[in-house]
């Protein structure tokens, strides 16, 4: 059975020759909560832009609700809701007016708009602030309003590009709670995010992209099982000064003395080792490194998380960026002129 989103051998090459997406294929079923993860520059946003008809693909095929992104773009736009990375609300308008405007852009009838807007204001807890200008809203309120604008026309599919980046934990939790509710009501959700615990909890399936290719897909449980091992995080003293050298020597030690290790990857502080029953290995590891005169600063064992899955497939840890200046702007409001 074809999915509600079907992507096959999708390629996007930009005018300057950059290959942002190199032939990815995946499919999302109706009603699914689908996570699309990857480091910055992996091709996530490009893929979302193609699926939401904002960008033309170079080759391959992509369809949304059985409609081709090339020939049926206007029809697709009627049934999807799109939230960009940036919070886009018109700060000169009130919350209500923002929603009404969006309803008009969606070419809905005035009476339908009015009803739906009242309903949405309640859903995102903005009923009290509905008639205040959005410029006076907090970052979290703006984000909620932005989310509401994507829902005015009762979309079947919601595309969200990092909807919670830069928000405080409380606002983030609120957004995820709304998304969960929407999904339970039957809306298909396609989301990119950097918050793995939330993906773990909410997404039924996910795909990990890196450098324009899908490196893994499946349910969070499947992907974690695939690792099939605990992760042992090793931190070396002086790893910042001659990290390369220490890592190299440590890898040699691991290779010569341990045979139960399934994988070793570099991490920020040293190395991450994957092995079954990792906790039993700790004493042996300490002894071995001591003999090799490699000083350990930390050692920790954990059962696999999505972060490990991510690290294994992309060689990078997903990192939630500190509140950067860009996010601060989002929080304190950006004036539209």
């Amino acid at each position, binding site marked *: 059975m074809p999915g509600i989103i079907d992507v096959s051998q999708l390629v996007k090459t930009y005018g300057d020759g950059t290959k942002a997406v190199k032939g990815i294929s995946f499919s999302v079923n109706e009603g699914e909560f689908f996570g699309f993860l990857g480091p910055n520059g992996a091709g996530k946003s490009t893929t979302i832009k193609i699926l939401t008809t904002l960008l033309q693909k170079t080759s391959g095929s992509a369809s949304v609700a059985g409609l081709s992104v090339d020939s049926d773009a206007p029809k697709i736009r009627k049934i999807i809701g799109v939230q960009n990375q940036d919070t886009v609300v018109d700060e000169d308008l009130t919350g209500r007016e923002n929603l009404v405007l969006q309803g008009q*852009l969606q070419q809905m009838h005035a009476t339908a708009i009015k009803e739906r807007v009242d309903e949405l204001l309640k859903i995102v807890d903005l009923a009290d602030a509905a008639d205040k200008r959005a410029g006076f809203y907090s970052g979290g309120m703006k984000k909620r309003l932005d989310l509401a604008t994507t829902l005015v026309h009762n979309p079947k599919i919601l595309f969200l590009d990092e909807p919670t980046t830069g928000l405080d934990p409380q606002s983030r939790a609120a957004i995820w709670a709304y998304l969960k509710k929407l999904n339970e009501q039957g809306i298909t959700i396609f989301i990119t995010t950097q918050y793995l615990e939330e993906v773990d909890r909410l997404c039924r399936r996910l795909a990990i992209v890196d450098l324009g290719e899908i490196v893994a897909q499946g349910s969070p449980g499947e992907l974690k099982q695939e690792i099939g091992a605990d992760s042992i995080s090793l931190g070396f003293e002086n790893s910042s000064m001659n990290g390369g050298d220490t890592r190299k020597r440590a890898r040699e030690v691991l290779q010569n003395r341990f045979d139960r290790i399934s994988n070793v990857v570099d991490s920020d502080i040293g190395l991450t080792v994957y092995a079954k029953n990792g906790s039993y290995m700790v004493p042996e590891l300490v002894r071995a490194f001591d003999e090799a005169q490699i000083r350990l600063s930390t050692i920790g064992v954990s059962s696999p998380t999505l972060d490990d899955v991510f690290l294994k497939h992309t060689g990078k840890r997903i990192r939630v960026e500190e509140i950067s200046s860009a996010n601060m702007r989002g929080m304190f409001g950006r004036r*539209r002129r």
Partner: protein
Amino acid sequence: MKKLVRNPILVFFSLFQPIIFLLLFTQLFSGLGRFLGAGVLSYTAFATAGIVLQNAFSSAFQSGTAVVDDIKSGFLSKMLATPVNRSAILFGRLLSDVFRVVVQTVIILVLAYALGVYPATGAIGYLLVIFTVAFFGLAWSGISLALGLKTKSAETVFGIAGAVTFPLLFMSTALVTAGFMPSWMQSVSTFNPVSIAVNAIRNPITGCNVNQTICNVGFDWNTILQAFGVIGGIGIVTLGATLYLFRKVVS
């Protein structure tokens, strides 16, 4: 997007300069009137046309920075993800800009009226003025929109606007008659679209001929139609370029 017009602060602040021009500049040069030509009765009346045009000129350049803002803030993407007709997005922008210019022009004309500038050709003359200014604003918005879409940088649009505005304005008949300029500047002014447009706006206000030597001539259709031709030509080129660049951004 059209609702942005309702931000009164923007309309007010962009009017600041023309109002200062109208109130102070005309006083500063009030003695200039008699040197400009026999027909010039008051410098304020003469300069009103120039100030109206200058306002349209700088106002039009705001379109380009606004479109850059729409691209950068993600507002354009958000609209493009809705079923709204693509060209409606562009024309909505242009219409709101033209509307703003018209509102500003009316405010300037009302203020000028309070200062004693009465239209020589009556209300119809003023309607013609507003129409000409709107038409000019539309064509000139095209330049700034094209620049904004091409460079995607508000600073660049501002920079080019600043570099272009004053030379074009001062080498035109916006603030003095052609006879008042050195001869090389006169030849520049003849081909300066700003001069051509300003002459067409001035005629209904003062009721004089182009060089302000003979007055009470009524509508000087030669001047007005020439201006429409030139503005139309500019408009076709600039709006064509805008449409082309917009398609590229949209796809």
